[in-house]
Every structure is written in structure tokens, then in C-alpha cells.
């Protein structure tokens, strides 16, 4: 009893006291960041559905570090560095989130499940009514990926890691996860965490960017009431089937994502209401919850504190900002081509991030003109953004995949 030390009782504090200074600072910072994410999610500044579980996971995993036999430190959440069958099997029996990570996260299943759910949210009718304009905007909305890739290489990242990080410019969380798992598995954790953190910021940050770039007069432009033929469910299904097969033929490496996305579209349009309810509710929200939680838990200081994280932070924000500017530039081009009858704010929705950017566009436009309804156009650009992000990521993966 005389040798009892108070820190032996409270191992979270003991591991903190025994750690290297940069780990101590990192753990405290990440605990604070986790609490901040919960607060900002609760206040509606960031995406609450993702940030609340992610924030609490991040804060808790950095508090709950303990000593294991042999003096090693770790947590009872998961071990992303476990490799080899024996080690993974051991961790599966110890860490409570290891099964989710091993069987759903590290193989991209959770990205496909989220994409399946997103597919059920997508009404491809919007893009089918205006395919050329929507695709033009979506192409402009990929500029961030184009610019971030060579800059990442200049900052010292190998080509495959720069490409994986640049996909953040496509503003598609599942796509970033999938691309980084294939292209840069060694740093997929920080890439995905940075990607989702920034995607969460789009809701709060993009309105300021729009207001800085687009004058109020342009933001208030009312879209003319165009005579558009309603697109039937059968036409949407034909498009989904043909596009899925065609894109899978061209890029087999991204075929799981294409299948998940277009399967969701077909489930939506086929009238299979039991499947529709399952995938658009339980599967989508269940996958989003565990995605947020596992991402938060992966932010343990000793895992996330990589010297490359700073580069990823710079590249991520650069990619998303340039993509947004590209989308707005596309909107401006259509504004001038239409003689001032096209609202350029629609361009921001082409960055993808379904459906957040479309909602952001409508929100900003409504603030400028209560009678301006741009949501159908924005959703068309939004859906096109998902398609172009998938194509761009698939081309990069095909070109730069190792082994």
C-alpha cells in the first residue's frame, strides 16, 4: 500500500503524464476539438448527424488511453494498425468497435452503404431535365481536385497520396474514404478525418464564400419558369442501369461505388417501398452514425498525429475552396450566356456534398430574394457533381493505383 500511486488508479491521467509532450498536447487538443465539434453540431453550424458522434468519439478515445501488459498504451475502442490474421483476431475479441472497423470500414463497405442511401435520396430527374448545364457546372466543380493534386505533390506527398487527398475537392465523403483506402491506405485515417471535417464545414463556410464572390443582384436572380417534360420513373431507371454498366465497364476499380449509388437510384424509382424505407432510413442513418463514431475514435493522438496531417489540412481546404469557386465560375458563365437569366449561385451545388450544397444555395438565394426558387436546378447540379466526382476519382485510382 505504501507504494500506491494515485495515477495507478486513474490510468487515463497516468498515460497522459507518461506520454511524450507532443502526444500530451495532441490528446488535450483533440479532446477540446471533440467537444467543440459536439457544440458546433448541436448549434447547427456543422452537420449534426455526423459531428455529434464523431466529436464524442474523438474526445472520449483521447481520454480513455490505458496501459496494456508490457507497458504499451492503447484503448479498448479499436486498433487501426492491427495487421496479420492473429493480431486482428485478437483485437476483434478485445476492442468493441473493432468488428465495425474491420468488417465495414477498412474494406469500404460503409462507404458503399452510405452511397446506397445517398442513391435513394437522389432524384436523377433533375439532371435528366437539364443534362448539359448540370454536367457543365459539375465539371467546373471539380477544379479543386485538379489544382490540389499537383500542389500536393509539390508539398512532398507521393502521387498516390496527393491524389487521394485531392479527392476531398470532389466533396463526397464516401468517395474520399474509398479513394484513400485504395490509393493511400497508410494515411487513409487522417485523409478521411480531414475530408469529413471540412465537408462538415461547408454548411457554415460556403455561404460566406458565395456572398464574397457573387453580388447580391446576381444572387437574387429568379429562374425563369421553363417548360420541362416530367421524367418518368422508367426513364430514370434506364439511365441508372445504362450509366452503372457503362461506368463499371470503364472503371472496374470503382464499380462497387457505382453499383451502390445506382442501386439506390433504382430502388427509389422501382416502387420497392420496403427497400426504399430500409435504405433511405435505417441503412443510411445507421451507416452515417457509425461512420461518424468510428472516424472520431480513429482520432487517437498517437494515430492521427502524423507530420503529413498539416499538409492534408492545407490541401483539403484548398481543394474544397477552389471547387466551390469553380462551381460559382461555371454559374457565372451560364449567367452571362443566358443574358442574366441564370442564378450563378446554383454553381455551388455542383461541388457535390449531397444535399448540403443544394440547401446552402437555396438558403443564400432566399436571403437575397424570397421569391427565387433554384432548388430543382441546384439538385440537378448536385447529382451531376456526384457522378463527376466518381468519374474523376475512378480515373485517378486507375492511373495511380499501386500494385
Amino acid at each position, binding site marked *: 500500500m505504501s507504494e500506491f500511486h494515485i495515477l495507478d488508479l486513474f490510468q487515463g491521467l497516468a498515460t497522459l503524464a507518461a506520454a511524450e509532450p507532443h502526444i500530451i498536447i495532441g490528446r488535450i487538443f483533440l479532446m477540446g476539438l471533440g467537444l467543440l465539434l459536439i457544440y458546433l453540431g448541436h448549434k447547427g453550424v456543422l452537420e449534426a448527424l455526423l459531428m455529434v458522434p464523431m466529436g464524442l468519439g474523438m474526445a472520449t478515445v483521447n481520454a480513455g488511453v490505458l496501459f496494456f501488459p508490457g507497458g504499451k498504451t492503447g484503448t479498448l475502442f479499436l486498433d487501426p494498425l492491427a495487421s496479420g490474421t492473429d493480431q486482428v483476431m485478437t483485437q476483434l475479441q478485445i476492442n468493441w468497435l473493432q468488428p465495425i472497423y474491420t468488417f465495414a470500414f477498412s474494406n469500404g463497405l460503409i462507404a458503399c452503404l452510405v452511397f446506397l442511401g445517398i442513391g435513394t435520396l437522389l432524384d436523377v430527374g433533375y439532371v435528366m431535365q437539364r443534362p448539359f448545364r448540370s*454536367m457543365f457546372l459539375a465539371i467546373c466543380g471539380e477544379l479543386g481536385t485538379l489544382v490540389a493534386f499537383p500542389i500536393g505533390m509539390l508539398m512532398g506527398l507521393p502521387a498516390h497520396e496527393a491524389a487521394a487527398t485531392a479527392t476531398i475537392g470532389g466533396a463526397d465523403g464516401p468517395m474520399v474514404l474509398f479513394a484513400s483506402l485504395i490509393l493511400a491506405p497508410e494515411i487513409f485515417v487522417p485523409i478521411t478525418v480531414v475530408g469529413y471535417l471540412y465537408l462538415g464545414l461547408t454548411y457554415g463556410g460556403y455561404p460566406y464564400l458565395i456572398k464574397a464572390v457573387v453580388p447580391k443582384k446576381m444572387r437574387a436572380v429568379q429562374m425563369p419558369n421553363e417548360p420541362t417534360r416530367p421524367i418518368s420513373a422508367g426513364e430514370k431507371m434506364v439511365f441508372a442501369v445504362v450509366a452503372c454498366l457503362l461506368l463499371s465497364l470503364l472503371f472496374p476499380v470503382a464499380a462497387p461505388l457505382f453499383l451502390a449509388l445506382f442501386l439506390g437510384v433504382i430502388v427509389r424509382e422501382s416502387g420497392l417501398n420496403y427497400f426504399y*424505407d430500409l435504405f433511405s432510413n435505417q441503412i443510411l442513418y445507421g451507416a452515417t452514425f457509425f461512420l461518424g463514431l468510428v472516424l472520431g475514435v480513429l482520432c487517437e493522438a498517437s494515430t492521427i498525429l502524423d507530420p503529413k496531417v498539416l499538409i492534408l489540412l492545407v490541401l483539403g481546404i484548398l481543394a474544397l475552396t477552389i471547387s466551390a469557386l469553380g462551381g460559382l465560375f461555371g454559374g457565372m458563365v451560364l449567367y452571362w450566356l443566358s443574358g442574366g437569366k441564370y442564378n450563378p449561385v446554383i454553381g455551388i451545388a455542383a461541388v457535390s456534398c449531397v444535399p448540403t450544397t443544394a440547401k446552402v444555395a437555396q438558403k443564400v438565394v432566399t436571403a437575397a430574394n424570397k421569391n427565387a426558387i433554384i432548388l430543382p436546378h441546384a439538385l440537378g447540379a448536385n447529382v451531376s457533381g456526384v457522378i463527376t466526382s466518381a468519374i474523376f476519382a475512378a480515373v485517378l485510382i486507375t492511373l495511380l493505383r499501386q500494385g
Partner: protein
Amino acid sequence: MNETLSYGLSVGFFAYGMMIVIAGLCAVLIRVIVTVLAKTSKAPAKASSKAPAPAAPKPAAAARAAPAVPVPGSAVDDGVIVAVITAAVHAALGAGHRIVHLEEASHSAWTRDIRARHHTSHSPHR
């Protein structure tokens, strides 16, 4: 450094160019699907109409007149339905809301409720 930059730019622009071509093909594919299916869906309708139909208003005119035209076989007209829905929305949500679009519900109330929660998730307490 120059080699790195030129490699990055060449791969980046090649991938971007490929994306533009494939996205353009997708847009063309969409237009072809919409055009072909629109024609095939109109063809049977034309074939089945043997008797001369009464003069119908042009589509644009019909769309404008639609809200005022009574629904055949119905005791109420569309204007009354819109008024009832408007009153219900006003009672439930209060002033300051506008009805932008009305259509027949294709999914369950449960699904619509979850969708509404998702779409308003960024301001959950407002």
C-alpha cells in the same frame, strides 16, 4: 521540382480531360435516353386514338389553366384543395411559409417525416 510539377500537371489534366469526356458522354446519353423514351411513349398513345378527340388546349395553356379547371368526377375543384392545403400548412407552421410545389405522395408518411428531419438537421432546434 519541375519534374514533379510537370508530372502532377500532366496526370491531373489527363484525368480532368478524361472526366470531361466521360461526363459529356453521360450528358449525351441522358439526352438520348430521354428523347428515345419520350418518342416510344408517345407512339402507342397516337396509335390507340382512332376517334377524333375534341380540340384540346395547347400544353402551355393547359398548364396555366390547370388550377382553375374542376377535376372530372370530383365534387371539389383543385382550387378548393389548394386552399385547404394552404390553410392546413398555415395552421401547422404559421405565417412566413410558401407552398412551392404540390404532388401526390409517393412514399409513406414515416419516410417523409424522416426525410424532413434530415433536411432540417442543420438547424435542429429552430
